[in-house]
């Protein structure tokens, strides 16, 4: 048996420079922090959610899966997140956000952020619908964990 480990650099070439997934997450978090409690790499069962943002009044939990280029991979993770989030989003590097099949995201109520490399360069291209599949127990647990951390 061959153990196949996908090459994962998380970096994208742009004008001779590389943009990392981490940079996109940093820019996005800085933007979301104005109105939300925000945490990166939040444990959800066996996996981690890239970014979780909870409204300051604690009502709504949004998850964001971030990718520089591979929007399908981000979509699959965002699809899984429908079972924990009140709203689930994909965030893509702005240069490649146009590649995303918006209809597919819309069909499942998943939203889309376009994120650039500069601070504040964040645009909500598609608003997410409220998830109809939220697990209220895991949702509350994550809210409690993040709001507790931020107190």
């Amino acid at each position, binding site marked *: 048996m061959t*153990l*196949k480990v996908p090459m994962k650099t998380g970096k994208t070439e742009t004008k001779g420079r590389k943009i990392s997934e981490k940079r996109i997450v940093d820019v996005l978090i800085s933007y979301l922090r104005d109105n939300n409690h925000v945490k990166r790499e939040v444990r959800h*069962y066996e996996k981690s959610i890239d970014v979780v943002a909870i409204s300051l009044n604690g009502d709504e939990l949004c998850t964001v899966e971030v990718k520089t280029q591979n929007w399908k991979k981000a979509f*699959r993770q965002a699809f*899984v997140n429908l*079972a924990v989030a009140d709203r689930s989003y994909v965030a893509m590097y702005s240069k490649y956000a146009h590649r995303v099949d918006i209809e597919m995201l819309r069909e499942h109520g998943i939203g889309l952020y376009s994120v650039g490399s500069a601070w504040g360069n964040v645009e909500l291209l598609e608003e997410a619908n409220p998830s109809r599949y939220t*697990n209220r127990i*895991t949702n509350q647990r994550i809210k409690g964990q993040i709001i507790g951390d931020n107190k």
Partner: protein
Amino acid sequence: MNINLRFGLQRDKEIIRNLQRKIDGLVIPAHILAYQAPVTAAFLSSFANMPFIIDPMTYLLQHSKDDLTNNAGDLRASIAKMCNEYHFDIAKKLTGNRQLGPSNIPNAKHFCNHVYDYQNSVEEKANTKKAIKKYLDRYGKGNSFTPRFIISPYFKFDSISDPWYTLSLNMGKMMQTICSEKGDGLDAGVIIFLSANNLDDGEIEKIASDYESFSHIIPWFDGFDEMDIQPATIVNARKIVSKLSGFAEVEILYSGFLLMTTAAEGAKAVSHGLTYSQHKSFGVTPGGGGMPERYYIPKFRAFRSLSQTDNIFHMRRELMCHCPVCDELLQGNPDNIVLFADEPEKLREHFINVRRQEADDMESFNRQSLVTELRSVYDTYHNLISKLPNPDAFLSGSNMRGLEYLNFWADGIERAI
């Protein structure tokens, strides 16, 4: 159909004891018995009546040194202890510069004698430590210490012209002679470690003819990954089981639901671990870190991660299981799937409950109704499931993301052999 649970981890002992009425026997890997002999032997003895066999694990001798040694270059402790039971210098040979070939394996009579004695000395192993007495006093010494039969040394072969094939067969025949000479009333059984996808009908006939004198045969289909399998391979596996069942009691080593369906070809039992070991390849699985907990979704006949199961149950509630464990824990509310993460032993209990039902259902196997069911599940749920990440891609390299495997199964089960 019987379920023989493969014992893998000492931490699973209590769960297995709780589930003992759902299973029919145990398979104990020789290196685990060697590594923690008194504890494992005492565990075996704690059952009132639990048949068992010991897998001699001799195929490990075919591996390269790198597969079997730790970072310091020493043979892994469990394998070293097992080797020392089998032959005085086999461990030394394994850590030498050259990978062992058939000619490096000890003399068949000598080797089989030691392998026999090792499998038939569980009682001695249980009595080697006073501390074990407390354990035995707690659970009582009810089980017989005698295995169902003795398994001869075996090796993986690629074709019937492979010298490893001849060696395995010779070891089996030698073990028959030794069993007869020892006069303990124990039969010799064999594990045939083969690949189901590269044998033609002539080779299958030859294997059946070569092994005709054995009454216990355990095929191990190398790397038979049920989530990534072609119909032709399924047909080959069915042919092999069918041929061997003509004269022997056949039980499959490492099996998921698909190989259970070879009950229709005469297989009497399957063995696998608690939630893992549904299939296994010759290659050594990298250790460390542990595998994530998984939930067995009965309709899919497959495991999914807990995050995916949570999602699936919320989208399609009718997929929720109604075994006693799930009825109690889920109570009809998919939100409660998270409780399995809090009590992972319940995942194993759920799986064994469902597997027991599946094994019992094999007694009334109906080929056409199963094929129809598999295709219907594919039609109903594939579109949803294909949007989720492939849970097994990391290990199997499979590109299957949804339920494509169910259609391959249906094709392989439906074809005439």
